[in-house]
């Protein structure tokens, strides 16, 4: 594992009116790492995610991708730089097919403009072919190829999650951010998911995920951040976190 840090959040704070959802959070993801964020409901995990992906501009603090300050950049700019996310409550495009959803993922890496499209220039045609090829490859990888012409939201729930992963992968990201990827999955599906995430890491991706399934988090993550009331109360390898008294008190203690 290399030590190059690709994502760094520095003292990030997010306030909504009087409510402080995230307070002075620090976080790092290194290359080829699988990092988990855990914490009770309402701890600020999703908000921090939204700060990183540009959905909300943090009230204070900075976020760096490699050495670039991306604080306050828009989600589409950030995606273009090489981050892609999935959503806790699946957000697919219902009037588009599975294939089109994934092809949309390639959007940030293609360039054809309105005139290219209207006049069907060589560049537009070539890009379109490449987009299609890439989308089909990804669908084969995630096992959705057979269903490529179905409408995205007509898929069973589990497959919809797979489609969200596929769409995220299509943008050729360096860093993948998964928001509760195992939500609603049964044990077998969760096992498949952890295999899939390992496979992604082997393919060279770095992964940051929010997850409630402790077993999954403890088994796949290299490092874990624990959030409570918007603050990072602990971080480290799964074993360290598991034995941290603060964590047990704030979170695990209540669970057991």
């Amino acid at each position, binding site marked *: 594992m290399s030590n190059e840090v690709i994502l760094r959040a520095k003292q990030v704070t997010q306030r909504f009116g009087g409510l402080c959802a995230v307070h002075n959070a620090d976080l790092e993801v290194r290359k080829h790492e699988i990092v988990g964020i855990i914490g009770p409901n309402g701890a600020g995990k999703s908000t921090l995610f939204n700060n990183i*992906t540009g*959905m909300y501009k943090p009230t204070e603090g900075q976020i760096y991708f490699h050495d670039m300050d991306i604080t306050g950049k*828009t*989600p*589409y700019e950030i*995606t*273009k730089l090489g981050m*892609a*996310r999935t*959503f806790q409550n699946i*957000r*697919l*495009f*219902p*009037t*588009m*097919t599975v294939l*089109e959803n994934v*092809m*949309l*993922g*390639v*959007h*940030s*890496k*293609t360039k*054809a*403009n*309105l005139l290219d*499209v*209207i006049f*069907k220039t060589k560049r*537009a045609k070539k*890009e*379109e072919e490449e*987009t299609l090829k890439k989308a089909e490859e990804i669908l084969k990888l995630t096992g959705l190829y*057979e269903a*490529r*012409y*179905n*409408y995205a939201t007509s898929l069973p729930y589990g497959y919809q999650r797979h489609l969200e992963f596929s*769409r*995220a992968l299509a*943008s050729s990201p360096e860093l993948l951010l998964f928001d509760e990827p195992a939500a609603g999955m049964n044990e077998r599906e969760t096992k498949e998911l952890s295999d899939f995430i390992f496979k992604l890491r082997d393919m060279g991706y770095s992964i940051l995920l929010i997850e409630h399934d402790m077993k999954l988090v403890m088994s796949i993550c290299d490092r874990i951040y624990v959030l409570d009331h918007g603050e990072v109360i602990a971080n480290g390898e799964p074993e360290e976190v598991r034995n941290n008294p603060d964590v047990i008190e704030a979170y695990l203690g209540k669970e057991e």
Partner: protein
Amino acid sequence: MKRLLHVWAKHEKYVNVVLFAAAVVYPLIFTRQYLINVGILCLVYVLLSLSLNVLTGYMGITGLGWAGFFGIGAYTAAILSTKAGWNFILTFLAAMAVTGMFGLLIGMPTRKLSGRYVAIVTMAFCEICRALETNMDWLTRGSRGIPNIPRLELFGMKFNKQAQYYLILFLVLLAVIVMGRIVNSRIGRGVLAVKDDDIAASAMGVNPFSYKVMIFGVAASLAGLAGAFYAHYIGFIDPSNFTFDQSTIIISMTIMGGLGNPMGSVLGAVTLTVLPEILRPLMDVRQIVYGVMLIIMMIVRPQGILGGFNLKHIRQQDSVHKEVRNE
């Protein structure tokens, strides 16, 4: 009904060719001036309805004041041809450019406003246009309108009725092709994604704002083209052509035909243009019957006649089923 749709999807190309051929043959068979005029009017509305479909069907923004853009196109062409003596090719291009610019301008508020408020902006815009057309006497001659707009002519040859018909048919064909290319491209996917879920779209690298503005521009410039043709064809325009009522006619056509489907716009526009003509003998009652039929159609098929059908998707799904069966 469902079978028919699959057959249509399979042979879409041929159906399109047949439809186009029918449109080409129409003025050769029905040579009465009145019938050709109805045909031309149909095609003007088809172009308007298509342009609004780009915005409302694909982008999901209800354009309530579409007659405003229609009017800008018509006035641009009328003024440039009567005052500066431009020929129609130039006035068409100018009308598209000017309405396109206004489209971009009216699209700007989409940065902050949600769809329903943008609808209001378009409606207010239409009213502002009409007020300006009525009151900027030095430019538009106010409510007296602009008469004697030069008829369409090329190299000194005046277009007869048939030729005018073919010109607008050509413009409609062009619009359909351009729309088709946009829809089946990365831009079209971006547009649909923004319509479906702009937050997810933006997380996947699509800038929702720039797409909305761009689509506003494209849609408006097509409406402007329709306006420019209309001005040259009819020869006289005044602000009463571009009222809110006109806007409601255009949006009714688009929605009744089916959002997000170019053929829907064709069907909607032709139906709602021909219907009042057929009902003409009924005199006073004709608008009432028209209204009643509009209501009935919305009850029977609220998503519009062809709304919710995507022939390409149907074709793709059928091809997979076939593969499975063959194995």
